């Protein structure tokens, strides 16, 4: 069973349906023991980093996620959920993340060329930097769906794939059992489903 961590941000309906469409058992839950008993954990998220990090801490689920990641369970952060895996973010101030991946989340404003719209909203191609089991179904040039205004930087040690939006932005990061996608695999058609199914097959 895959636990989708529900800490009160975002709409988890599509994510659950996408996993179920692959024949996977998925449960949206805020109950620590459900997350502890799952084979794998997905940390979703939309909205602002600070709010989401606060909610994750208020519910105590930050510790559950960290404990499960440290126990070696496959963990996938999606969109803001991926950003939360990093050390810190500079979205409206400075906020600490979970520190499961090294690096920081910084604004596109000022780092991407002027004239490009922020957020990056739409389909963009993945540029794979190193092979990783999460991307085993991804082919060169496959597009995925992004909606974001911030991105993970200074994360060379975990960088798996980027996408080009004026500059190369971190699209996939992974370190051992801890993985993250900046884009929404549950909204990225067949390519996205291929990534979710690869996640479900990663050895525990």
């Amino acid at each position, binding site marked *: 069973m895959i636990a989708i961590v529900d800490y009160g941000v975002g709409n988890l309906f599509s994510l659950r*349906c996408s996993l179920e469409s692959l024949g996977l058992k998925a449960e949206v839950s805020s109950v620590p023991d459900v997350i502890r008993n799952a084979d794998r954990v997905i940390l979703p998220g939309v909205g602002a980093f600070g709010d989401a990090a606060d909610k994750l801490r208020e519910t105590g689920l930050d510790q559950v996620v960290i404990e499960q990641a440290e126990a070696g369970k496959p963990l996938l952060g999606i969109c803001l959920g991926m950003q939360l895996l990093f050390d810190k973010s500079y979205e409206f101030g400075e906020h600490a993340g979970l520190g499961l991946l090294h690096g920081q989340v910084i604004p596109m404003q000022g780092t991407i060329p002027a004239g490009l719209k922020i957020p990056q909203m*739409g389909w963009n191609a993945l540029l794979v930097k190193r092979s990783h089991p999460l991307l085993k179904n991804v082919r060169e040039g496959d*597009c995925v769906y992004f909606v974001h205004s911030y991105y993970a930087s200074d994360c060379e040690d975990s960088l798996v794939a980027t996408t080009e939006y004026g500059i190369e932005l971190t699209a996939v990061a992974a370190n051992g059992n801890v993985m993250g996608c900046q884009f929404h695999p549950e909204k990225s058609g067949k390519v996205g489903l291929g990534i979710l199914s690869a996640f479900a097959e990663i050895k525990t």
Partner: protein
Amino acid sequence: MITKRIIPCLDVRNGRVVKGVNFEGLNDVADPVRLAAQYSAEGADELVFYDITATYEGRTLFTDVLRSVAEQIFIPMTVGGGINTVEDFDRVLKCGADKVSVNSGAIRNPGLISEAAIKYGSQCVVLSADVKRVDGVFRVFSHGGRIDTGMEALEWIRQGVSLGAGEVVVNSIDTDGVKQGFDLKMLNAVTSIVDVPVIASGGAGEIRDFVTLFTEVPDVDAGLAASIFHFQEVKIPDLKEVLHRSGINMRIV
């Protein structure tokens, strides 16, 4: 680099997609889930669903349709029609919508845009504007394009974006249904005043119209159409192939 988006629009009444009037003058309908699945498989980058029912029963059928689509189709989905309150946002987001488009509801109460943007984020709020030239000025119309609000369209769109709309759909009443191409002048006027994504709607009749759109209005992000896709006058794979060959960045599936 980010790709330009092709978006089929599905009008839903009483749980069925209303394709429009066919060559025999009959009001043709289709199963929304089947049509959405077909468009997704063909490479549509996003789907827009408009609720064109006015009854309570119709509204319930509409949310049932959304839920069934979201259970089976995994590309972004924008929902509009009858969105007047934040509760309406909540109702369709729970059924799997990613973005919600506001039109007359926001004209009546512009605060709806900011309220929804604060609650769900700007990326979730789409301002849809029906625009028509009146005495040489772009004006906003409400109620499905029937009522002249008297408001200047560019001013309204600028205001909507500053209130928190994260995307704008510009539907030109002047070119809608004429099938002679998108309203390039209107779209250029809009893209020059806002820095959020702009979706062009109204006027597409053939593949060439999309090539012209993305070439002549480089800052437009997406082209939206309905009947030409429903009646297969333009097939999405053919359209994307031609656009790709014309040097427009496309997602090819």
